[in-house]
Every structure is written in structure tokens, then in C-alpha cells.
């Protein structure tokens, strides 16, 4: 797997080859980001294509000083997905719909509950992840699956790192609640 720097250098030297390297490195990641927001597989493929076309056609405008290449690409993918979902189902994107009655749990208790790696728990988590609102699923995906930092996620979704941290904590609490209800 090439690093971002190598990809950018290859794009400068040999654009077609650099584009293929970029696709090899980011195709699946972009797909997962879009899939965390958009449910339909066909839509995911179309949006992935749109996002990657935008990435490849505007790669000249990327400035490394503003953030990593991954952050820039995820931002494009996120905006494509969110704009698509807004056109489809505008209500789902509300950030206020998740402030339901969630019991206050300490981080240690959450960690104990969530990190006891059992097969049933993982399956239950998979189901619980499906029940999360779109933005929550996206944050979880970016943080746990794409290994983005809080600052990077904040840059992608246009929020502060503190807000992202707070939001991730809420999501974990919600997952815990869902697991408890299912159990």
C-alpha cells in the first residue's frame, strides 16, 4: 500500500498511474464511508464513483497543509453522501433526534460492557450499529473503522474536536442501551 506522499508524487509524475494508485488505496475506504450514510448498495456504488471522480478531477486543489489526503477524500465522500441523503430523507440527518433518554454510564462501565469480546456481543453490536442514526454510524465508522483522529473527524463533518468527542461518548452510551435492550 502506497503512502499519501507517494500517491501524490506519482500523480504529479504520471497522472494515470497515480490515479490508479489512489483508487487502489481509497476505493474501499470511500465506499465504507458512503455506505455508513447511505443504505442502498446501488446508491453506494454510484456515490462512490461520483466522489472518486470529484477527487481525481480536483486533486490539483488539494493542499497538504490543510490536512491529510485521507481527510480530504473522506470530506468529499461525506459531503456527497450527506447531500444525497438530504435529497432522499431530510429528517434523518437531524442531530437532535438522538437525544433520547440514555442512562448515564461511566466510561469504565462502558468499556467493561463493550470490550468483553464475545461472539454474541459482536453480533449484537453489528445489529445495534444498523439501528444507529446516519450521522452516528458515520462517526463510529470514521473513528473505529477508518482510524481517523477526533480532529480529522471534526474537519470532515465541520465540527469541533470536543463536539466529536462528546458525540462519540453519546453513541457508545446508545450502543450500550441498545445491547441492554436486546439482551
Amino acid at each position, binding site marked *: 500500500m502506497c503512502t499519501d506522499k507517494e500517491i501524490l508524487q506519482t500523480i504529479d509524475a504520471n497522472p494515470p498511474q497515480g490515479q490508479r494508485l489512489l483508487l487502489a488505496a481509497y476505493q474501499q475506504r470511500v465506499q465504507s464511508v458512503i455506505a455508513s450514510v447511505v443504505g442502498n448498495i446501488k446508491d453506494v456504488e454510484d456515490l462512490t464513483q461520483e466522489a472518486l471522480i470529484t477527487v481525481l478531477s480536483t486533486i490539483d486543489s488539494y493542499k497538504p497543509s490543510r490536512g491529510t489526503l485521507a481527510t480530504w477524500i473522506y470530506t468529499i465522500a461525506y459531503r456527497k453522501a450527506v447531500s444525497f441523503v438530504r435529497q432522499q430523507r431530510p429528517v434523518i440527518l437531524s442531530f437532535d433526534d438522538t437525544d433520547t433518554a440514555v442512562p448515564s454510564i461511566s466510561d469504565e462501565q462502558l468499556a467493561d460492557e463493550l470490550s468483553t469480546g464475545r461472539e454474541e456481543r459482536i453480533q449484537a453490536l453489528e445489529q445495534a450499529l444498523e439501528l444507529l442514526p446516519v450521522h452516528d454510524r458515520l462517526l463510529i465508522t470514521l473513528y473505529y*473503522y477508518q482510524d481517523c483522529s477526533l480532529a480529522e473527524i471534526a474537519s470532515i463533518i465541520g465540527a469541533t474536536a470536543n463536539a466529536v468527542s462528546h458525540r462519540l*461518548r453519546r453513541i457508545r452510551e446508545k450502543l450500550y442501551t441498545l445491547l441492554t435492550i436486546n439482551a
Partner: protein
Amino acid sequence: MQEKFSDTDIREALRRHFAAMPPLSDDFNDKLFAALNRKKRQRKMRRLIIWPSIAAAATVALLLMLLPASEPQHNAVIAQVQPEVANQSPKAAQPETSEEPAPVAIPHKAERKAPRHSEPATQKVAHAEPELAPVAEEEPAVEAQPFRSRIDYVAANRDNMRSRISEQFETPFSSSNNEKTDKS
């Protein structure tokens, strides 16, 4: 505040979730590059089309700016002149346009004696027909009047002057000419 929420279970669940996701179609890359090339071509076409149209639009705009620029100036001159013409009394205007004999009634000698005014046109007319000067000599009061009031005076006493001129030359104005002036 950079608190880590590391959780292997969540990571594993997510990994399984996305692993179960169907992969992109085989011709995804081909479609992608085809769409990318199409987009590049469209962008080139847009660039090619935009510049001539901008040049044409600029030319048209320039023409539109230049053409009406002359008309308003002309209209402005007319607008300046019209009030001046309207301010002039119709009686004063008539001798210059319809009746030529009236202005010649301004006395030639009186004009010489009186201080010079800034309107040489009337002086030229007075010089051109000096034979009518004796008519004006009979009314010295006109000398002291300014030029505009003299015109008014002439216009007011036009009939008297006309009769005097006709007596002097024994050539009455034709009836048709009088009718025309009455109508106007």
C-alpha cells in the same frame, strides 16, 4: 479532551459489517475513468465555448454603450434649447420667423448711439437695411431699452410699424401673407 474510545468489539463489528458489504462491480474502474474522461472533455468544450461567447458579449455591450451615448447628448442639447425657446414670448419669436419686416424696424441710428450690446445678429440686420432707420428715429425711447425689451416693443407695435412701412413704401403686404401670419 482527546479521549480514546478504543473498543475492539466495536472495531470487530464494523470490520465484519463492511466485509459483508458487496464489493464494487468489476468494471467500476473502467466506468470511473470513462466518466472522468467525459468530464474532462466537457470541461474543455466549456472552456472553448465560453471565451468566444464572452468576447462576443463584450463587443455587443461595447457597441450598446457607444451607440446610445451620442443620442442622449443630442437630446440633452435639445432639452437645453427647448426651454429657452419656450421662454421667449411668441410675439418676440414671430418677427424672426414668420414676418421678416418687423425686425428691420429697429432704428439704425439709435442703435449706433446706444451702447453696444452683446448680440451682433440684430446689428447686422440693422446694418443690412439702413433705409428703415428713419422710422425708428421717431421713437427715441427705444434706445434706452435693452435688446430684449426692444424686441418686445417691436412685437407689440408691429401693426403700427407695418402700417408706417407700408405708407412709406406704398407697397402694402399681400393679403395671403397676412393670412398666413394670422394663422400661425
